[in-house]
């Protein structure tokens, strides 16, 4: 018995060694042999038929599902509209939808699947910065295209991503300008503990220093944090002129409830939020947030013919009680922008689309947007709005004209050194 076990052990050890040996024997390219880390695998997009595949990658489950479902809905509506009006270059769009499950790892895996296994021509989706950063290497290594529809923290620009939401100089800096105009001399920063609030606050602090504003405090809550009694106490005690809020998701509800519980009001100490759109207002409770300012590039109440059409079509499709918000509009716009780029390039191939992208414009519900061919962002108009008792947001202040995207803030002298 013992001897037989020993023999078995020897056989197995041999087997294990063999497998390791196999692994070492046949290795491929080394990093230094191919310069920047190897060539991208060849694209497998099939454009021979009368349809072309595109991918939608949104969280349909998990904590981000509520927000990302609305983006998915407006993407689906745009695809249907485009198909009804003859498709792109005469080809109907065939949508492959995948669930990102609110987890960066899943986003990376599903992006890989859409590109390598489903061979889609472009992918639309993502919401959190984590999901975008997780997908970025996948798109770069496969030389594929991602259209990302949400405002974010800037300091990024990829050949393989088109950013159709705002970067910091189209949202956060105008918001700071607005607060300064309103006479705020000191700020308190409240955010969730992750990359967007931290990077945003870094920019805000640099801005404050250059503009003689005082930062009275800076607090981060873990994602999903629900007890804000201590943080709101600190906010109250610091007595700043305004609060700059980069909290994410459900934390906003607990924060605003507690804020009101302490007797703080938008008149005494306004809380300017950059992650609260029409969709979120209902969850927070209109009573808790009415009169507070928010910063975006689009509101449902905008008075443009394109927007009236968009809102009417959306409500007709998904229900009269549904609202439209900035990321939804940016997602809807992104599909039309891709269509315009493909038609300008007369090709679905990624290098051709990218080459044609610069200068492509679209009359979006938010107004005209233009693609910047250099950094792949859009020129967008900044709008500060206030939450009204009906739960909608009305524009208070506008930058007037579209602001050129500047993700690395190179045109702002005080921002030197922020890009790392």
């Amino acid at each position, binding site marked *: 018995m013992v001897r037989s076990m020993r023999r078995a052990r020897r056989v197995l050890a041999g087997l294990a060694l063999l497998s390791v040996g196999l692994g070492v024997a046949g290795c491929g390219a080394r990093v230094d042999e191919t310069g920047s880390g190897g060539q991208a695998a060849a694209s497998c997009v099939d454009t021979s038929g009368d349809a072309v595949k595109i991918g939608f990658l949104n969280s349909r489950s998990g904590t981000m599902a509520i927000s990302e479902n609305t983006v998915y809905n407006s993407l689906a509506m745009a695809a249907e509209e485009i198909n009804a009006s003859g498709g792109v270059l005469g080809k109907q769009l065939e949508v492959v939808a995948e669930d990102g499950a609110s987890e960066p790892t899943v986003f990376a895996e599903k992006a890989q699947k859409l590109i390598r296994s489903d061979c889609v021509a472009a992918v639309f989706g993502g919401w959190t910065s984590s999901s975008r950063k997780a997908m970025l290497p996948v798109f770069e290594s496969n030389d594929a295209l991602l259209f990302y529809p949400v405002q974010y923290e800037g300091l990024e620009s990829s050949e393989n991503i088109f950013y159709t939401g705002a970067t910091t100089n189209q949202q956060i800096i105008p918001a700071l300008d607005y607060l300064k105009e309103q006479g705020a001399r000191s700020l308190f920063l409240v955010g969730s503990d992750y990359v967007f609030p931290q990077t945003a606050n870094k920019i805000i602090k640099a801005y404050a220093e250059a503009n003689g504003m005082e930062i009275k405090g800076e607090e981060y809550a*873990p994602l999903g944090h629900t007890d804000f*009694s201590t943080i709101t106490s600190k906010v109250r005690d610091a007595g700043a002129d305004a609060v700059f809020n980069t909290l994410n*998701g459900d934390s906003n509800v607990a924060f605003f409830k507690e804020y009101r*519980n*302490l007797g703080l009001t938008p008149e005494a100490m306004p809380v300017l939020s950059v992650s609260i759109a029409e969709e979120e207002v209902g969850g927070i409770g209109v009573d808790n947030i009415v009169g507070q300012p928010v910063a975006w590039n689009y509101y449902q109440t905008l008075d443009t013919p394109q927007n009236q059409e968009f809102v009417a079509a959306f409500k007709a499709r998904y229900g009269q009680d549904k609202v439209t918000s900035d990321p939804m509009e940016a997602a809807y716009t992104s599909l039309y922008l891709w269509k315009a780029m493909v038609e300008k390039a007369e090709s679905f191939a990624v290098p051709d689309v990218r080459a044609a992208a610069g200068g492509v414009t679209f009359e979006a519900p938010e107004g005209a947007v233009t693609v910047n061919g250099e950094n792949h962002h859009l020129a967008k108009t900044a709008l500060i709005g206030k939450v009204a008792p009906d739960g909608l947001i009305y524009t208070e202040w506008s930058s007037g004209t579209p602001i050129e995207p500047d993700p690395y803030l190179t045109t702002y002298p005080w921002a030197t050194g922020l890009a790392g």
Partner: protein
Amino acid sequence: MEILVTQIFNGLSVGSILLLAALGLTLTFGQMGVINMAHGEFIMAGAYTAFVVQQTLGSAGVSLLLSLPLAFAIGGLLGVLLEVTLLRRMYHRPLDTLLVTWGVSLILQQAARDVFGTAGVDVPAPGWLSGPVEILGFSFPRSRLLILALSLAAVVALLLVLRHTSLGRRIRATVQHRQLAETSGISTRRIDMMTFFIGSGLAGVAGVALTLMGSISPNLGTSYVVDAFLVVIVGGLGQLRGAIIAAFALGVAQSWIEYSTSASIAKVLVLVLVVAFLQFRPQGIFSLRTRSLA
């Protein structure tokens, strides 16, 4: 002074929520040994009960008062359902109850997502509960005071039931010596069911209290359940007074550390403190002295 009072109050208020969440567990975990991970989802069910009641009734004040008994009943019924269908056959393998109820909690969470959506929903507090109230020159949020009062009321009610009713006597008898209780003519099966009903019902009440603080979302329970278990462990299994002390101690520690550092560090430090405490007192603050517990 101002900060001291505010932070002690905040700590008590955090503690009162922990206590409400853990009170039911002192029964189901502490006394019956079932590790019910779905306890958090019973809290969530209570919170959504408050939401639904308010959606149908409209008036915030009336619906708050009405949701308390209703959430107790709904949480309790969910608990009884779980006990009868699954846990009854598993009392002899407590570790496995943890995994089974984790499965239940996954299903309940997903069901809540499909029914109510993943977004947090708001249950507006009645007008007389919003804003602060001045006491001795310090201002306290009214809703927090109500939660504090509610948790103390729940403790008193539970104590009265356990000490002074025949049901309470039978529950204690069953916990202390199941066989002997059975010989005395107590139907231990029914008592198990009732214990679970009360324990889970208290989770429902905790859910209603949570609506006063923040949003109600399907993953509401997960953020409280681990903390609630820690309270029970630190307090000592099945020890009501232990749970009370542990809850308030953890609450005060959490908000003090949070005030001087940050919320994430506070959470981690509190966990470290708990582990350290259990190192020299593994049985918790108080330990149950019965024959049946080795």
